[in-house]
């Protein structure tokens, strides 16, 4: 430890659930840099709630692997950021502690589920933040708030200490104002961790290079078709044109499995959630159940009153999808569909180096605009394929539509996180 920074943010966007007023920092790559951490990542001695009433007051007795790495790099943990409860949402409105507002337009959502992390960076409160991305939860808020966000390849960043929602899909990743900041934070958090059995020994030691000469970019027709706002599509096409001017070539392609990718994603994540969230019963942490009642009634009461509507909906959907008689129709089919998504990407990546398209089909929604769950789920259509396949994907700001930021999404081959970073960097350097 070689100092401390005082941190008293003006949190007018409700980006934080808690902040450290004065926090120590050490020496290293991030010495003295204030980093915000999404509230589903465990921080020893600092309340970690997943924006849920069921974890109100929970103080983790240990640090997530990535938090230990941040501290070792000298960073200051500036605070814990708001999110959709347990990461379940696309707007950060599903927080039990009120929505986060988009710093670009406070009548709009910041995106989700890592909306607090994105808003904190976009508002200039912190330079970088950690989020987690299960189906777009880093890239969506990065796009909506006009910043950069990377979902790493599955296995490159340890999930130890990330409070699990959907293990097979989620990854912790960096958000920042610039590609360089995102790359620097990635270099701190990536690498092998024996506490996560899906961890890969693939450290990230990379300095972004702005060279796309000869790069082949796949342009999937599904990313510019039905459901995608034409103005958003036009902004993204122009950005891809910029990459062509820099020496890249584009190749039209198709991802037929996109037809059922979203359904496969929601069946998989709700099924995993129904199992993961069974642990919240008030016995080891959380609000005290009334033990005068039978255990079944006591658990039902504490879970019913402490989980929000979306969390209960997803637990129930997953319980239903896994129940006998329906497993074959939902879960088993979703896993076949997931393999088909992987196969489509493998086929396309034989001919192209990266795939580009919009991060989100629209600009940031107005607050309360997505009140119907299914219409909110549909907004994830362009981000979930990367999670199903496990591949790296970055969102970089590429212009505006109706005055709101638009994100260019670049997806790469498995473990080629460095390449998607380089393409985003080339674009960013060309336009700035």
């Amino acid at each position, binding site marked *: 430890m070689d100092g401390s920074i005082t941190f008293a943010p003006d949190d007018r966007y409700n980006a934080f659930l808690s902040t450290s007023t004065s926090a120590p920092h050490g020496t290293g790559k991030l010495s003295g840099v204030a980093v915000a951490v999404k509230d589903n990542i465990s921080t020893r001695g600092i309340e970690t709630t997943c924006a849920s009433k069921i974890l109100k007051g929970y103080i983790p007795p240990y640090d997530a692997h990535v938090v230990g790495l941040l501290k070792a790099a000298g960073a200051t943990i500036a605070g814990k950021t708001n999110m959709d409860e347990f990461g379940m949402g696309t707007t950060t409105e599903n927080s039990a502690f009120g929505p986060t507002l988009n710093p670009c337009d406070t009548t709009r959502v910041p995106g989700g589920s890592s909306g607090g992390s994105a808003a904190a960076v976009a508002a200039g409160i912190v330079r970088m933040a950690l989020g987690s991305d299960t189906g777009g939860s880093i890239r969506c808020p990065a796009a909506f708030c006009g910043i950069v966000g990377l979902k790493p390849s599955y296995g490159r960043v340890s999930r130890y200490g990330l409070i699990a929602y959907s293990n097979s899909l989620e990854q912790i990743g960096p958000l920042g104002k610039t590609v360089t900041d995102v790359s620097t934070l990635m270099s701190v958090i990536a690498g092998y961790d024996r506490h996560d059995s899906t961890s890969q020994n693939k450290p990230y030691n990379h300095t972004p290079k702005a060279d796309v000469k000869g790069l082949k970019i796949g342009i999937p027709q599904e990313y510019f078709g039905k459901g995608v706002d034409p103005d958003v599509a036009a902004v993204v096409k122009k950005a891809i044109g910029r990459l062509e001017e820099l020496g890249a070539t584009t190749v039209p392609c198709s991802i037929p499995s996109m037809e059922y990718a979203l359904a496969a994603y929601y069946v998989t994540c709700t099924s995993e959630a129904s199992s993961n969230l069974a642990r919240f019963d008030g016995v080891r942490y959380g609000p005290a159940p009334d033990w005068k009642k039978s255990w079944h009634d006591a658990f039902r009461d504490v879970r019913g009153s402490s989980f929000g*509507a979306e969390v209960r*909906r997803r637990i129930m959907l997953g319980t239903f999808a896994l129940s006998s008689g329906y497993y074959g129709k939902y879960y088993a089919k*979703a896993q076949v569909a997931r393999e088909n998504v992987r196969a489509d990407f493998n086929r396309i990546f034989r001919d192209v180096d990266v795939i580009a398209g919009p991060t989100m089909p629209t600009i940031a929604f107005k607050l309360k605009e997505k009140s119907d769950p299914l219409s909110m789920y549909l907004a994830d259509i362009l981000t979930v394929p990367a999670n199903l396949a496990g591949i790296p994907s970055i969102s970089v700001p590429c212009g505006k539509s109706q005055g709101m930021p638009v994100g260019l999404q670049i997806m790469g081959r498995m473990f080629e996180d460095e390449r998607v970073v380089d393409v985003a960097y080339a674009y960013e350097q060309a336009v700035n």
Partner: protein
Amino acid sequence: MVTENDVQHIAELADVGISTEELGTFTHQFNAILEYFDILDRVEGSEQAERELYNVLREDVVEPSLPQEEVLRNAPYKEDGFIKAPRVM
């Protein structure tokens, strides 16, 4: 189509406590979502991963653990160094 009774049954299996006022809305939303999931009927083939999947196992080695006091800190009910859970019999 799932009925309000089905949703009530699932809520009981999952211990998530749906109130009577919420039941109608939940059932309506459930049906809209399940109808969308029907698109999976078009997926051909059976569950068979192309990739080679393997389990990652390790030896069960005793290591220093967190102090008992810290581990119990978040539990609402405890007694003699144990977490107190409800009677299940």
